[in-house]
């Protein structure tokens, strides 16, 4: 549904200085997918989103949505978009802002209030309806931004740092909302620094750095037996056996040890040995999630 083909974007200043924000980026995003976009600061995420929304044109290559340019697609069908910085005129009131966006989203005037009430309810904004935008806290403003993206039943949702400023309760609520919004005919594109969040809600995560696509991590496939990653092990009793079995283990606090990279096969063999010696294991977990590990490797390259 969304196609980036050899896309590059170079910014040129008046003085002739150039910055390559995105270089030779190619990717296909299919219907039904929840795609994550991760990358360090300045990696080119915002530029990619700007190109996807048709807010700027690529210097080379092309971006198409269902075979047409992004601007053509958006002007015909609209898109749900939450920007990283929620910019709404500060003198607008929350409910009025949503009513304005509903009209622009193409909702019939007779149904505007009904849709506004629905998203206000979904995002817990009822008590903030009459407040000026400038009176809202960062988290509430973020929810208003999300609400305007959800006003219409959009086929494409682009969410840039959607949980930025949200408290833990609303972060969890957001994950549930994404789960509810997932549909076979919808694309949800989420850019975030929060790898844990991307791991939980995405089907694939695209990692970019210095404007280049570094790797695409498919989170639907299980980790392979030969995947190497460091682990942390916590024990309730028999801690003295840990360093005997895992000779390279390093203490990470009372009853906790960090174990450097090893394969799942090796880990399980050593764990069996540890258990046979009578150690009471509380937990064994990767120090980094699979996505974090991939991110570190991709960005370090």
């Amino acid at each position: 549904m969304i196609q980036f083909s050899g896309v590059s974007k170079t910014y040129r200043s008046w003085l002739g200085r150039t910055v390559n924000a995105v270089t030779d980026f190619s990717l296909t995003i299919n219907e039904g997918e929840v795609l994550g976009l991760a990358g360090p600061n300045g990696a080119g995420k915002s530029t990619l989103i700007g190109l996807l929304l048709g807010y700027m044109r690529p210097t080379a290559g092309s971006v198409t949505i269902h075979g047409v340019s992004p601007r053509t697609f958006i002007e015909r069908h609209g898109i749900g978009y939450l920007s990283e910085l929620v910019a709404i005129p500060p003198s607008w009131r929350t409910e009025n802002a949503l009513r304005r966006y509903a009209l622009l989203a193409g909702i019939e005037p007779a149904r505007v209030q009904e849709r506004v009430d629905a998203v206000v309810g979904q995002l817990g904004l009822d008590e903030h309806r009459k407040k000026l935008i400038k009176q809202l806290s960062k988290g509430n403003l973020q929810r208003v931004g999300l609400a305007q993206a959800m006003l219409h039943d959009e086929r494409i949702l682009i969410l840039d740092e959607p949980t930025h400023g949200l408290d833990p309760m609303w972060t969890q609520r957001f994950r549930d909302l994404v789960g509810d919004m997932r549909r076979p005919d919808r694309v949800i594109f989420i850019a975030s620094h929060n790898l844990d969040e991307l791991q939980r809600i995405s089907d694939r995560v695209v990692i970019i750095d210095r404007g280049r696509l570094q790797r695409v991590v498919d989170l639907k496939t299980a980790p392979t037996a030969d995947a190497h990653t460091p682990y942390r092990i916590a024990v309730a009793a028999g801690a003295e056996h840990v360093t005997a079995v895992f000779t390279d283990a390093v203490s990470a606090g009372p009853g906790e040890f960090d174990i450097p990279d090893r394969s799942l096969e090796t880990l399980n063999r050593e764990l069996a040995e540890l258990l046979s010696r009578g150690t009471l294991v509380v937990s064994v977990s990767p120090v980094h999630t699979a996505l974090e590990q991939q991110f570190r490797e991709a960005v370090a390259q």
Partner: protein
Amino acid sequence: MSAPALSTPLPRRHARLGRYAEWQARDFVINIAIITLLLFGMLGWLIHLNMDANEEMMRARHMTMTTPMRLGLFRELFAMFTYVAPIIAVSGIFSVDRSSGYTRFLFAKPVSPPRFYAQSLIVKFAGFLVVSAVLLFVWSRLHPPAFDWKILAAAAIGFVVVGGIVFLTSVLTRFDGLIGIVVLLVGAVVWDKWEHVTGFKHWLTWIAPPTSKLTELHDWALGLNAMGNLVDLPFPTKWAMWNVAYGVACVLLGLVMLRKVPVTKA
């Protein structure tokens, strides 16, 4: 190459821009109309006080303040209004939305930037005419001229040319108000210096904004010539047409440029 079929149909839809005009009108009232009415209301009040004082002084010398004298003072105020009020109304029309990031949400909706800002400009034009009519009506209760459509027509033409220039600069730069003023001043100087010379410089005047020629329209609307005499002047068709054409060309160029420039900051 056609795109692969979608699993479910994707219907076309359009922003309800017509209904959105109500919100644009509301923004005009809150952000522009009130400040314009206050500013020119106060200026008008000061001139009114000044006229009263002059009248008092002249009466003491057994003289009267004539209608041409009163119209002359109004002409100064009206000229200022036709230059400044369109700048207040139009500056920032796109540049503020873009630099503040408001365009991000606006243009993720099924709406084209040229249509959105063309409508915004039309709403501002209508609002400007209402503000002009209100101010003229109040003034006409105190001093000449009487409320006349000719004065509103001259104000409207002023809006088209000055507003058009500011609209174009707003699409091209975030310093639109300032640059618009500089462009208008440079235009006035160029027309003053080179209108009657021959050669390249003369042709250059036809590229410069012809807003200094709005005075011909003001004279026609008030029936007052440059010497301060009451006369029935013919409609300055050439300068009216040229100003309207110049303003419309700036607006059209601005609308085309809205398709070319990035609608958000990088």
